[in-house]
Each structure stands twice: as structure tokens, then as C-alpha cells.
């Protein structure tokens, strides 16, 4: 079994690692060896919904989580004061160390070869992948190919009026492969994303900003991590000023976004600073964070100050912010426009529907974010090998994992802007939590050989400890406000959390409790009722899945469908009602129309 992975970004790495660990002879191709695992944007891993993905990757045996812990210099749990479902881990990382960690890790992997070159063509025969060809003319034969080339397809950088072709600042874009992919018949969509400027640490007046220290004690991402992680830096919070607003408004015509030069559709959620000024004209200030990019360099990432304005305007913006008025730019902010493939051309395995054994993973599918890319890489890598082994595919459901939500969203609904994961995308948000990622998906990691037995057993013991604690809560009673309650019942009350419960109990309920222990217990108690309701939802969804739509159904004959819904159905040919519902624009009312049509049809037979 031979697998080739094109692109050594966050998606490519996970794909290559998984494939090689599952026994395939894997080649990881990259345009630039030094840029393996390059964090092109913010020097951090995780965040809300993204942290959830990383925990899932970890529980399935992927490596992003381990790299995050090893190179983490600042650890924080977001939404700490909110409920367990929305608590998320985020690390700031040393970018250089992160790359080194990954490169070293991969170089040591059995069955894995890392190779620097540029792919010019995918070799296809009879709608099946045969291998890849490089610009130098040589070829590698492969049974499966995973394309994870990120923003490199026809990438074009924009800084004000200057544009040049690049996959990333100063790295060549991939034009041959881009053309090849189009020639193979894949539809693409032009997207854009941006990155803010980097400033020299010494040129910033740190006193003017609010420190955001890491957690004490810091909580690691990975179950593999045995060492104690440490906070080594502090991040800082700052605000733009009315002068910044003025500067931007006066110079909007110089922004390629607003002058119409960029056709690509950019993310709404990672807007450039000029985007924010225009969209929120009543706001006098917008916040941003100053994040150190590493321990051994002086680059500071200005999170929130993305821009495609010309450099001299960027400098004026900086001058208008107290504390940054004397700052020196090390790299300017820029926007990049690139081709992504329309992900509805893929199935849930991330394999292309048209060509066997050709997979796409990562930002090339129209997603944004390292974590989104990494999860896709892991799934693509696992599926590529499973198919070659003639085994059943690995598809996570929406009620099982955020990874499932992500993949399901993009392959059934497509994307019209770079897809970023949010917790609100998950109908089963209360069940998809960081504290139960292990419970949900580690079984798969074990099954595919990505997680070792020893670690699995260790985590299972921790899980048992938590479950035992919950049972103990049901058996212990306490007097509270003149009434007797079980500890379980008390914990259900919104004003009581686990710490408060131990206080009321007078003694510890759990020895050496960890943050995850607490979250797990709180979630299972406080969310119990809602989870029950959601399980009914799952059953209903499964029912819909069982209602199959015959292959040759004539959508033109079904009344009650709008023209565009009809077109989408004809295009997508969903095989059951559940899949039909997932198509963007198909409403439950349309599902009813189809369902009634199918029922009447059977009745009339």
C-alpha cells in the first residue's frame, strides 16, 4: 500500500502520520522542508470549538495536540466561567519550536518519507489514482493520494496595490497542480484570508496594554503529555482608537478588498481591521491581542489587526495606537487569495466522488484554521488506508464529534466563505465537549492502531474514577436551605458548581481532582435532562436516515419544492431524507414534500 500526501501543513502532517502508522508506505511531499507545520497565521492552537477538535485529534491518536503541549508557552482555558460544553483549551506556541517538533517527529516515523519537491500532476488512469509526477519529471507511484496543499493553489498575495503570486508570503504558489486539478474536472472557488503584521517586541510600550496571563495551573491538551506544561509568556490586550478609524476611512480606496480588486470571498469571522471599521461604524474601538511568536525571537503577532491596506497606511494605523506608536514592523499584514475546491465534490471520507483514492484535506477544501485542517487530514489519512485494506470507511457522526460536524457540513452543504468551526454549528453541543473527547472517539484511535493500549487503559481508569464519583453523588445526601438533597441534585442547581459542592460537603469528593474531572462531572449532572432530549433528536435523525430516496426519483414530479431546492436535489442526489435535509437550502418543509410524495407513491402502487 503506497500513499502520497501533497503538502506538509497541518492537514498533510496528520494524514501522513496516520497513514504510515496504519502500515502504508507514505511519502509526504512539501515545496519547502523548512516550512513543515508552518503556522502562517496566529501562533496558537485551539480556542473555542477548535480546542474541541484538537482534543478529538488527540483521543484518536493524532499529533497536533502533542506538538501543542511540547511547544506551548502559554496555556489558557477559555469560557472557564461558563458551562463545561463551551470550555475550550488554547495554547500560544513558539512557532519555530512547533515546526521543529513536527519535522523531527515525522523524520523519525517508520514507513514515512519526507520529500521536498513540487507536484505538477496527479497521474490518473480509469478514474483511479496511480501516482504523482513532479516538475522535475520524476514520478512516484501510489495507490492513494491526499491533496493537502492549503492556500497554495494559484495563491496570490495582496498588500495594498502590490500583488504577487505566492502560496504564502515568500513561498511560491502552486500553479501546475492548480491547473491539473481544474483539468481533472474539479470545480474551484476563489477564497481569501488574511494575516496581521508582526511587530518587534522591543519597539512596543508594554505598559500601555493589559496583561493576559496563562492559567495557573496550566492544563495540557494531550493525554500523551507526561511532563508538566508551563506558562512562559504573557499575552497583552489592547484597543484601537478613533484615530485608527479615521485613518482607515480616509484610505479605504487603497484597500484591495474595498476597491474590488480581490474577488475572493473572505471569512466573516476573521475580518481585517478595515472590515471591522466598515461593518461596525458605531464602534469607537476594537480590541486586539499582542502575542509573542516564540521564546527566541522578537516577533509579536498583532491578533486582530489583519489588513490588506498598503504598508504606509498600516504604519499610520500603528502610530495611532498608544503603545504601538513607536513600533517597528517586522512583517507587514497581507491578504491572500487562493483556489479551494468545492467540497461537495467529496464524500464523507473526504475522497473525491469522481476519482477513486484521491482525497482532499485541509484549507484546500475551503476551511480556515489549523485545527479544522488537521482533523480533516487525520480522517483522510485513516480512510485512505482503510479503503486500500478493503475495510469499512471511518465516518464520524454529528452527535459523535466536532470532526463529524465539520466534515458533514462541508461535504453536504459546501462553503461560500472559508469555513470556521463554531460550537453553534453543533446541534449536540452539550455532548461534544473537551472533557469527554476521550470517551467519544478514543475507541477509534485504538481500533486503527493510532493509540496504544497502555495509554488507553490509563485514560479508561480516569474515566472510571469520574463515573464512580458521579454515582457517589447520587448516594450522598446533604441538608441545604432546610431541605435534604442528594449531592447530585445540588450540583444540578445553576448556582452550585463542583467546588461549591465540595465546600458544602465539607470534605473532598474526588481526590486530586483535575480540571477535566470537574468538567466531566459537572457536565454529566447539569446537562442530563438536555442530553436525554437530544438523544431523542438523534433517534429522529436516524429515522430520517432510514427513509431512502430511490435513485431514479424524478424531482421534477415532486410539488412543493422551489426551483432552487429542486436543482440542488437533482445535483446532489441524496440517498436518504437525512442527507437531503443537510443540503444547504433544503428546508424541513421540502423534506415533508418529498416524504409525502414518496408515501403517496407507495400508497398508489
Amino acid at each position, binding site marked *: 500500500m503506497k500513499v502520497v500526501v501533497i503538502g506538509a501543513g497541518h492537514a498533510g502532517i496528520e494524514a501522513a502520520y496516520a497513514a504510515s502508522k496504519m502500515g502504508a508506505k507514505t511519502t509526504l511531499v512539501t515545496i519547502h522542508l523548512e516550512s513543515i507545520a508552518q503556522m502562517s497565521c496566529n501562533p496558537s492552537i485551539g480556542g*473555542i*470549538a477548535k480546542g474541541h477538535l484538537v482534543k478529538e485529534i488527540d483521543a484518536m491518536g493524532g499529533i497536533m495536540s502533542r506538538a501543542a503541549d511540547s511547544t506551548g508557552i502559554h496555556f489558557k482555558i*477559555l*469560557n472557564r466561567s*461558563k*458551562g463545561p*460544553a*463551551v470550555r475550550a483549551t488554547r495554547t500560544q506556541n513558539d512557532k519555530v519550536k512547533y515546526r521543529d517538533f513536527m519535522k523531527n517527529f515525522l523524520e523519525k516515523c517508520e514507513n514515512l518519507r519526507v520529500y521536498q519537491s513540487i507536484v505538477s500532476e496527479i497521474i490518473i488512469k480509469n478514474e483511479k489514482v496511480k501516482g504523482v509526477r513532479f516538475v522535475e519529471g520524476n514520478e512516484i507511484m501510489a495507490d492513494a493520494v491526499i491533496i493537502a496543499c492549503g492556500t497554495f493553489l494559484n495563491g496570490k498575495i495582496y498588500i495594498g496595490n502590490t500583488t504577487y503570486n505566492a502560496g504564502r508570503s515568500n513561498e511560491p504558489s502552486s500553479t501546475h497542480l492548480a491547473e491539473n486539478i481544474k483539468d481533472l474536472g474539479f470545480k474551484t472557488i476563489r477564497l481569501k484570508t488574511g494575516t496581521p503584521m508582526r511587530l518587534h517586541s522591543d519597539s512596543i510600550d508594554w505598559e500601555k496594554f493589559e496583561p493576559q496571563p496563562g492559567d495557573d495551573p496550566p492544563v495540557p491538551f494531550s493525554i500523551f503529555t507526561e511532563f508538566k506544561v508551563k506558562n512562559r509568556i504573557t499575552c497583552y490586550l489592547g484597543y484601537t482608537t478613533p484615530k485608527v478609524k479615521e485613518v482607515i476611512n480616509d484610505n479605504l480606496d487603497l484597500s484591495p478588498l474595498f476597491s474590488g480588486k480581490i474577488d475572493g470571498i473572505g471569512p466573516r469571522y476573521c475580518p481585517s481591521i478595515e472590515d471591522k471599521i466598515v461593518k461596525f461604524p458605531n464602534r469607537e474601538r476594537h480590541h486586539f491581542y499582542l502575542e509573542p511568536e516564540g521564546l527566541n525571537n522578537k516577533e509579536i503577532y498583532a491578533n486582530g489587526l489583519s489588513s490588506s491596506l498598503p504598508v504606509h497606511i498600516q504604519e499610520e494605523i500603528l502610530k495611532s495606537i498608544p503603545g504601538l506608536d513607536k513600533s517597528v514592523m517586522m512583517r507587514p499584514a497581507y491578504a491572500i487569495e487562493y483556489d479551494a475546491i468545492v467540497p461537495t465534490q467529496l464524500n464523507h471520507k473526504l475522497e473525491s466522488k469522481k476519482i477513486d483514492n484521491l482525497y482532499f484535506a485541509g484549507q484546500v477544501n475551503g476551511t480556515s484554521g489549523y485545527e479544522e485542517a488537521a482533523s480533516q487530514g487525520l480522517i483522510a489519512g485513516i480512510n485512505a488506508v482503510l479503503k486500500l485494506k478493503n475495510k469499512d470507511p471511518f465516518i464520524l457522526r454529528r452527535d459523535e464529534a466536532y470532526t463529524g460536524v465539520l466534515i458533514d457540513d462541508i461535504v453536504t452543504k459546501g462553503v461560500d466563505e472559508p469555513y470556521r468551526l*463554531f*460550537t*453553534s454549528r453543533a*446541534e449536540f*453541543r*452539550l455532548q461534544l465537549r473537551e472533557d469527554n473527547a476521550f470517551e467519544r472517539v478514543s475507541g477509534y484511535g485504538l481500533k486503527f492502531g493510532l493509540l496504544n493500549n497502555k495509554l488507553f487503559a490509563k485514560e479508561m481508569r480516569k474515566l472510571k474514577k469520574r463515573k464512580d464519583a458521579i454515582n457517589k453523588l447520587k448516594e450522598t445526601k446533604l441538608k441545604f436551605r432546610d431541605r435534604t438533597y442528594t449531592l447530585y441534585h445540588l450540583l444540578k442547581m*445553576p*448556582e452550585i458548581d463542583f467546588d461549591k459542592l465540595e465546600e458544602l460537603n465539607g470534605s473532598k469528593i474526588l481526590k486530586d481532582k483535575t480540571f477535566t474531572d470537574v468538567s466531566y462531572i459537572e457536565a454529566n449532572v*447539569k*446537562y442530563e435532562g*438536555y442530553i436525554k*432530549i437530544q438523544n431523542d433528536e438523534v433517534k429522529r435523525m436516524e429515522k430520517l436516515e432510514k427513509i431512502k430516496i430511490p435513485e431514479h426519483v424524478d424531482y421534477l*414530479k*415532486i*410539488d*412543493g419544492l422551489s426551483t432552487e431546492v429542486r436543482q440542488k436535489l437533482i445535483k446532489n442526489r441524496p440517498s436518504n431524507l437525512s442527507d437531503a435535509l443537510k443540503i444547504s437550502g433544503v*428546508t*424541513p*418543509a421540502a423534506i*415533508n*414534500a418529498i*416524504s*409525502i*410524495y414518496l*408515501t*403517496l*407513491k407507495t400508497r*398508489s402502487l
Partner: protein
Amino acid sequence: MNDDTIAALSTPLGIAGIALIRVSGKNTLSIINNIVERTPKKIIPKRAYHAFIVNESKRVDECVVTLYKKPNSYTGEDIAEISIHSNPFIIEEVLELILRNNARRALPGEFTYRAFKNRKIDLIQAESVNELINANSKYYASMKFGNLEGKLSELIKKLRVNLIKLGIKIETMIEFEEDQFLEEIDIINEIQKSSNIIEKILLNSRFTEVLNKGLSIVVAGKVNVGKSSLFNLLLMEDRSIISHTPGTTRDFIRERVYVNGLPFEITDVAGIDNAIKDSVEQEGIKRTYEKIKKSDAVVFMLDASRELDESDLKIFETIKGKQRLIVINKIDIANRNILKKIRSNFEKEKIYEISIKENINIDVVFSFLKGLTNNIKNRDINFIVNQRQKDLLKRLEAFLRSLVKMSKTKKSNAEIIAEEIRGAIKIIAELTGDISNDEILNGIFSKFCVGK
């Protein structure tokens, strides 16, 4: 299959002057051209034309035909409404003619179903059609019409907008770690308002059964006091509309009467005469007392020309605690002493002196009946809900109450509030039919009569 042109009789079969056949679908126009003979040939939509139905040049019946061109019709398709004589043979012949011209018989509720799926009406409105047709009182009908006009839909849609607004704020809080939440107090107040309205609707819906079936009134009194006259008076009084529902036992005559647009079920109970020892009569009397007990109100009649006796007193005992109107009839031939005795006996009661024969003071009866319905005619709520809607509204109200409570608690869990919002929005979608369990959908439309 749903492409077919459908046809059905839209009026009930039975003795009536006119029968209305409705045709809907793409073949409507060609059907009309084939079976309707008229001059001039051209038919303008929404006009009524006098013409003849012909079968191969033979005239079958006179008719009046009106065309509605899509999408400006009930179903959103081309519609023809043909009025003919309500003779079952003619009706059948005309239907046959239509069917031969490329149409089929409509399934129960299919016209309204088409209106629904062509987005002419939403589910609440669709259900209202059926209930409008079956509505038994003018008032109920006007409320149901309120539903049809979308008043309930409007309220629900407004609520949905507020829920979504709140949902967006909560999701932003979660995704972007913000903490300013109490600014949203306006949205919460709006949601509280909607919750209160729904509570009122639910309270009010108690009365819908009453409004449909009618308040039950018993006219009680001893033999020959004038009950039948009162009864006839109510039935013949042209302030009320009569519908005949013959009584089933010889002990009662029960009629439905409409007063002020509201239905009453008036029962004229057998004259009570305790003196009669006949066992059958006794049985009848027992049933009379039961009927009185179960009624919503009683009109107790006394006789101004005869002494009070045991029967009067016994009846009065039975009606204690009930809403009642006590009248002394035959005031035109009253005996002053008897009057005095009656008044002193029922000292604490309000008693009206009337004469049905001489038309004296009979207004008090109508005022009494009207008065019974005043607490039902709550001006605030002008729509009624059916059982399906009631169940959904109860669930919705529970979500809203919980939502408001949680939003006001400081230590609230944003993600739980978000779940409550999701739940509420789902129920709203079920109410308006945007999501609905298709069994329910099928159930709703199959309850319709054919031709609707």
C-alpha cells in the same frame, strides 16, 4: 401524481339549492372550455358567468362558473368553481364529465394541502380552514378567521424573531468569550411578553370547547309554568339563528340557539311534578335533576298565578350555587299575594317579572344569556387554537418560562440558555409547519372533507 388536476364537490350533499364543484390544476381551463357552453366564449377571472354544462351538445344543467387564474387562487393553481343544482344525479354527471376531461377526484383536504404547499397559507392557517368550516358559532368563526388571517402566525413569527436575536447574542458570548449580557434585557422582556400572551391563549382555549358546543342552559320549572313558551320564544326570536338538533328522549327537548353569535344548548326539561308517583315519570324527574346539575346555567321559571309548591322549592334546592335567572312568568295575570309570597320566600334572590304571552320584560332572558358569555369574549385574545396547537404552545410556553428565568439569573449557563432557545424555535417551526412530523401533516389534511 401531484401534478394532476383535481375536482370535488365542495358543498355538503343533501337538500340544498346549490352545489359547488371545485376544480384545481393545470387542466382547469381546458376542462371549462370543454364542458361549459356560453357566449361570449371568453371568460375573465373572478367574474361569475351564467352558462350551461353540456355533454356532447346536450345541456346537463344551468350553472354559474367562476375562474381564478394562478397564482391568484386558493390553491395557487388555476381554479374553477362551478355552481349547479344540488341534485345528486346532476352532481355526479357533472363530476364525471370533468373527470373524463383529464382530472381525478380530490383526496380529503387536497385543495387545502395544495394551498399549503404552494405557500399560500401556513399550517396554522390551513388548520383554520377546516375549523372555520366546522365552527358552530359566529364568534368562534370570527376567531378562527383571525387564525386564517394569520394573527396567530404573526404573534409566533414575532416571537421567533426575538428568540433568534437573543440566540445570536448568546452564541456571540460563547464564541467570542464576551460577558456583557444584561444589555439584552429588552429582548428578554419582549420574550416575556410573548410568553404572557401564549399563557393567555392557553387559558382562553378552555373556552373553545364551550364556544363550539355551546353553553348548556336548562329551563326548569313546574308543569305549565310556561317553559315551552319560553323555549319557543327563544327559538323564534329573530335575534337568534336556529339550528335543529332534535332531542333524543321524551323527557327533554334540546335545541341549539344562537344569541349574539354564541351558541347555547337550551334544554326544556319535563315539567316537574313531585305528586306523580308513576315510576317512569319519577325516572324522568331524576334525569331532569341530573341535567340541571350538569348545566352551565339555569332559567328557573315561577308562576305568578299559582301558589308556590313543593316542586318549586325542590327545583330551587337543585339550582343553588348555579348561575341562574329566576323569572316569574304570567305577570299579566298575577295574583298580588302570590307574588308577595314568592318574593319573601326567595328573599335574597333577584327575581324578574315577565310575561311571555304578553311580551313583557322578556329582554331579561336575552340579557342573561349574553351576560354568561361576557367573560369569554376576552377582547385581548382574538384567536383560538386547536388541540395540536395547544400542545405545542404548552411546550413552547414551558421553554419560554425557563428561558426568561435563566436569563434573569446571574449565574446562568449560556450554553443551556442556547439549548432552550433552540428548543423553542423548533416548536415554532412545528407550529407553522416549517418543520413538521409528516404524520401530523398527513393527519391534518386527511381530516378535511373532500372538496376542501
